[in-house]
C-alpha cells in the first residue's frame, strides 16, 4: 500500500490464490448439481417419443458435480484472469476502456433478455426502436447514410463491407474489379476478410512516415482495383493525413474506400469518417462503445455506408413508418444475411446505453482524452524506449525494443515483466511493420495516476534491462503460471481432456 499519493507504488504483488483441477477431475459418479423443472405431465406411452438408434444412453465424460463444486470451480478460475475491472490494459488497437456497470443492468432487463427473435414486430417495438435509434446515432457519428447492425464483430463487418463492394461493382457491370489494396500496417482480418469475399489482396508498403505512400498507391491503382481498405487512424496510431487525397485517387480509379473503424475512438465527435471519403466503415462496438470483451467476445461490428451502397446492406433491415418499426426482408439487391437473426442484440443494448449516457459532448471528450493520454505516454516514454514514429499520435503510440535488444531483452520480455508490476501488457509485435512493436493504447478511462504508475513501471523495466536482464527472461514471476510453452502446445496439440489423458506435466 502506498502511504500517500506521491509515493511510488506498483499494484503488482503476490497473494494467496487457489488452484483448481479440471472440472472433469472433480466428477464423482452420482453427484448432482442440477435441478430440472418438474415434470407436470401424465406418463406418456413410449411410442409417442423417438427411440431406438436415434438415441444415446449416456454422455460419457461429462462431469457430475454439485452446485458448490461449480461455484468454486468457476470462481477460482475467474480469479486467474486479469480484466479491465482489475487494472490497466494498454492493449493497442483493442480500445480496452472501462465497461460501465449500468450497461449490465440494461442488457439483462427481462423485456430484452426474454424477447424471442421471431415474435411479431408489434411485440418487439422497444427492441426495434433501440436498433433503429442506435443506427441513427452511429450514422451521425460516422457521417454516413445507412447502416447494418448485423455483423457480430469487426471481422464480420469487414466481410459484410467487402461483399457489398463486390455487389456494388457487379451491379454496375464492373466485374473485373477483383483486387483490394491493403496497407502493410493493416490488421490481419483485413486481408482475411477480402479472401472470404472472393477478392485478391495487394499490399501497399507504407511510407517512412507510417502513412500510405501516394506514389505507391498511384502505381497500384487500375481498373481491377475494387477498393482500398484503410484504417484511420492507422494501426500506428497515426492519422492518414492524405485521407481525402487517397479517397479522391481511389474514387477516380473507380474503386471504393473501405475504412476499418476499429480506431474510431480517436475520431468520435472530431471528424466524421464519411467526410474523409470513406464509403464503408465498420465500427467495433466492443472497442469504441464500451461493450465488454468477454475474454474474446461477443462483440458487434455494425457497418455504415453511403447512399450508393445502401441497396446492398444485409437483410433484414429495421424500417420505421411513423412511430412503428418493422423488419424489411424485401431488398432484392441485398448481399443477404450474415446471421441467423439480427446480430448480437445484447451488445447493441449496451452500446445504446453508453451513447445515451455519454451524449455528444461526452463522446468528444472521450476522443480528446484518449488522444491526450496516448500523447502523454509518448512523451514520457520516448527517452527510454525507441518510438516508432516520433510525432503527435492519435489514441495510441508505438514503441519498439531496439534500445533493449542491445541487452538481450525483447518486447516479449518487457510485456511479460509488466505483468509482475500489475499491468496487462500492451499489444506486441503488431503492426507487423514495426519490428518488436509495443503498441500502447491507454483510452480515456484511465486516470493520469494509473498512467503514471504504468510509465514508472516501464521505466523500471528499462532499468532492469540493463541491471538484471535475466529477470526479464524469467518474467512473469508473480503470476499463477510462469511463461507458458506455446511451441509445445502447437507441436503436441491437446485440445480436450479425455479420461486417459497424459498431462504434459506431473507437478505437485
Amino acid at each position, binding site marked *: 500500500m502506498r502511504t500517500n499519493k506521491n509515493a511510488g507504488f506498483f499494484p503488482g504483488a503476490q497473494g494467496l490464490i487457489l488452484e483448481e483441477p479440471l472440472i472433469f477431475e472433480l466428477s464423482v459418479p452420482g453427484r448432482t448439481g*442440477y435441478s430440472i423443472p418438474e415434470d407436470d405431465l401424465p406418463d406418456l406411452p413410449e411410442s409417442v417419443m423417438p427411440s431406438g438408434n436415434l438415441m444415446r444412453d449416456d454422455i460419457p465424460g461429462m462431469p457430475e458435480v454439485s452446485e458448490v463444486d*461449480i461455484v468454486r470451480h*468457476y470462481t477460482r478460475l475467474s480469479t486467474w484472469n486479469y480484466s479491465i475491472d482489475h487494472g490497466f490494459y494498454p492493449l493497442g488497437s483493442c480500445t480496452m476502456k472501462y465497461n460501465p456497470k449500468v450497461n449490465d443492468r440494461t442488457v439483462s432487463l*427481462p423485456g430484452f433478455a426474454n424477447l*424471442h427473435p421471431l415474435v411479431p414486430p408489434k411485440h418487439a417495438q422497444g427492441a426495434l426502436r433501440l436498433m433503429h435509434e442506435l443506427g441513427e446515432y452511429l450514422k451521425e457519428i460516422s457521417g454516413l447514410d445507412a447502416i447494418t447492425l448485423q455483423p457480430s464483430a469487426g471481422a464480420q463487418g469487414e466481410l459484410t463491407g467487402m461483399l457489398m463492394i463486390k455487389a456494388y461493382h457487379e451491379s454496375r457491370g464492373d466485374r473485373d474489379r477483383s483486387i483490394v489494396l491493403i496497407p502493410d500496417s493493416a490488421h490481419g482480418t483485413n486481408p482475411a476478410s477480402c479472401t472470404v469475399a472472393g477478392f485478391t489482396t495487394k499490399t501497399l508498403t507504407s511510407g517512412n512516415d507510417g502513412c500510405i505512400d501516394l506514389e505507391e498507391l498511384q502505381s497500384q491503382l487500375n481498373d481491377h482495383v475494387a477498393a482500398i481498405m484503410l484504417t484511420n487512424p492507422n494501426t500506428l496510431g497515426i492519422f492518414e493525413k492524405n485521407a481525402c487525397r487517397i479517397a479522391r485517387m481511389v474514387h477516380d480509379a473507380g474503386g471504393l474506400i473501405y475504412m476499418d473503424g476499429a480506431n474510431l475512438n480517436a475520431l468520435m465527435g472530431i471528424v466524421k469518417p464519411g467526410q474523409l471519403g470513406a464509403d464503408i466503415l465498420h465500427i467495433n462496438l466492443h472497442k469504441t462503445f464500451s461493450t465488454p470483451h468477454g475474454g*474474446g467476445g461477443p462483440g458487434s461490428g455494425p457497418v455504415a455506408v453511403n447512399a450508393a451502397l445502401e441497396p446492398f446492406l444485409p437483410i433484414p433491415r429495421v424500417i420505421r413508418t411513423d412511430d412503428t418499426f418493422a423488419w424489411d426482408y424485401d431488398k432484392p439487391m441485398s448481399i443477404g444475411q450474415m446471421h*441467423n437473426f439480427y446480430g448480437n442484440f445484447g451488445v447493441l443494448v449496451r452500446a445504446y446505453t453508453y451513447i445515451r449516457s455519454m451524449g455528444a459532448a461526452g463522446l468528444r471528450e472521450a476522443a480528446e482524452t484518449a488522444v491526450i493520454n496516448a500523447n502523454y505516454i509518448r512523451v514520457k516514454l520516448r527517452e527510454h524506449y525507441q518510438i516508432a514514429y516520433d510525432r503527435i499520435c492519435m489514441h495510441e503510440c508505438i514503441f519498439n525494443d531496439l534500445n533493449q535488444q542491445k541487452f538481450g531483452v525483447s518486447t516479449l520480455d518487457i510485456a511479460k515483466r509488466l505483468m509482475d508490476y500489475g499491468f496487462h501488457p500492451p499489444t506486441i509485435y503488431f503492426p507487423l511493420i514495426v519490428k518488436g512493436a509495443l503498441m500502447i493504447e491507454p483510452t480515456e478511462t484511465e486516470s493520469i495516476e494509473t498512467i503514471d504508475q504504468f510509465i514508472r513501471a516501464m521505466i523500471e523495466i528499462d532499468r532492469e534491462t540493463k541491471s538484471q536482464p535475466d529477470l526479464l527472461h524469467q518474467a512473469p514471476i508473480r503470476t499463477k503460471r510462469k511463461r507458458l510453452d506455446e511451441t509445445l502446445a502447437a507441436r503436441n496439440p491437446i485440445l480436450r481432456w479425455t479420461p486417459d489423458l497424459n498431462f504434459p506435466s506431473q507437478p505437485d
Partner: protein
Amino acid sequence: MRYIPLTQDQRRQILKEIGVSSVEELFESIPSNLRLNQPLDLPPSLSEWAVQRLLTGLAESNADSDKSPCFLGAGAYRHYIPAVVSSLGNRQEFVTAYTPYQPEVSQGTLQALFEYQTMMTQLTGLPVSNASMYDGAMATAEAALLAFRTTKKSLLAVSRALAPGYRKTLETYTRHQEITIRELPVTPEGRTDPEAVQSVLKENPAAILIQSPNFFGVIEDLSLLSSHINNTGSMLITVVNEAVSLGILKSPGDTGADIVCGDAHSMGLPISYGGPYLGFMTVKEKFLRQIPGRVVGMTVDKDRRTGFVNTLSTREQHIRREKATSNICTNQALCATVAGIFMATLGRKGLRELAFLNMKKSAYLKQRIGSLKNCRLTFTGPTFNEFAVTLNEPVERINRKLTEKGIIGGYDLSPDYPEYPDTVLLCATELTTREHIDNLISILEDLGRVS
C-alpha cells in the same frame, strides 16, 4: 463525465507536458476544414437513472416470454438458466477480460474454454472443438468453407430442412467461392430424402449438409444417410441448432459426421432477441489444422506446471492474413464460457434429463394437437421439442387470436416453405407447462368449432 477521470486541471497540466497549447493541436493532422466545429447531433447525455428508465421503458414494450406462454422455437430455444450460470457467467473477471493473448494472466478464461471444448466434443462425438463462432448460421457457412478447402470440390448438397437463416447466411458466405449449392428435398416424414442424397453423391459433392433435429423439428436418420456417404470422398456436415437435443440424441459424430456445427445458445444464454448466441464447430482429428477460429490447448509453464494457451494460431488471420482458414478474430468466448458452466452444472445426467423432459413436453403437445379436428401433424417423422402442424386457416390469423389471449403462437412456416401452407412450427420446452399446453389446445379447439 463519470467514466473519464481526467479533470480539467489535469488536462491543462498534461497538455503542457505534452508540449501543446491546446487539444486542437493534437488533431492538427486532420484537415481543419473537416474537423467538426459543432457537437454531433445526438440526444443529450442522461443520468444513470434516466438512462435506466429509458431502457426499462423500451424493454417493457417488448413481449417477455417469461410472462406469456410462448410456443416459438425455430432456431431460438427458451430454457431455464440456472442461477449459478448467470451468477458465475457475470463474474466481471470473465466479462471484462480481453481475448487471452497473454496466457499468464488469462488462465481463467483459457481453462474455461478448454473445458468448454472438451464438453462440446463429448456432446457432439467429434474430437476437436474450437472455442466458438459468431452463431450457428456463420458456423455452418464456415463448415462449408472448410469442406471446400479440404476436398477441393465445388458442389454442396444442402437439405431443404436446414434453417432458412442458416441457408441464407451460407449463401452469403459462399457466393464468391465458385460453389454450387444443390438442395435436397424433404420426404413426407419431414426428413431429407435419402434417395436424393444417394443420387447427389454421384456428382461428387464436397459435402452433404444436414440439420438434425431439422428445421421442422424432425430428427434425421443420420446413420442411414452417413452409410450412403461413407467412403465416397464427400463429407457429412451435421448441423445442430438446438444443442439441448444432444443430451439424448445419438451424437452426430457417432452417426458418421465429419463436421458438427450449429448453435449452442440454448445452453445457458438468454434468447435475447436473437443474439449473442453461440456458434460452435467440432471436427474430426484430421481437420485439426483446418478448423477456423480460436482453439485452446494444454501446455506447461517454465516450471512445467500445466497451463493453457491459444494455440494452432498459424491457421489464423493475424499470422496467415489472406491465407487464413477464416477471418474470425473476436468470437463469442463469453458465450462459450457460459455454455460451459451450463453443461458442467447439468452434467452427465442433467443434460439427459433436460433433453428427455423437452421431448416429453413436446410429445404431449403433439399428442393433444393430434386429437384436434382442425389441425394435422404435417410430418410423420420423430421429433425432439418442436414439430410442424398444418391448420385449416392461415397461421397469422390463428396467431393473432392467440395473442389476444396473451399467448405467443408458433412460427409460421409458410413464407419460407410455400409448399406447406397454413403450417406452424410449435415448440415446447421444459418451461412450457401443462397448463400452457392445455390452454393452447382448448383455444385451438374453440377456434375449430367457430370456423
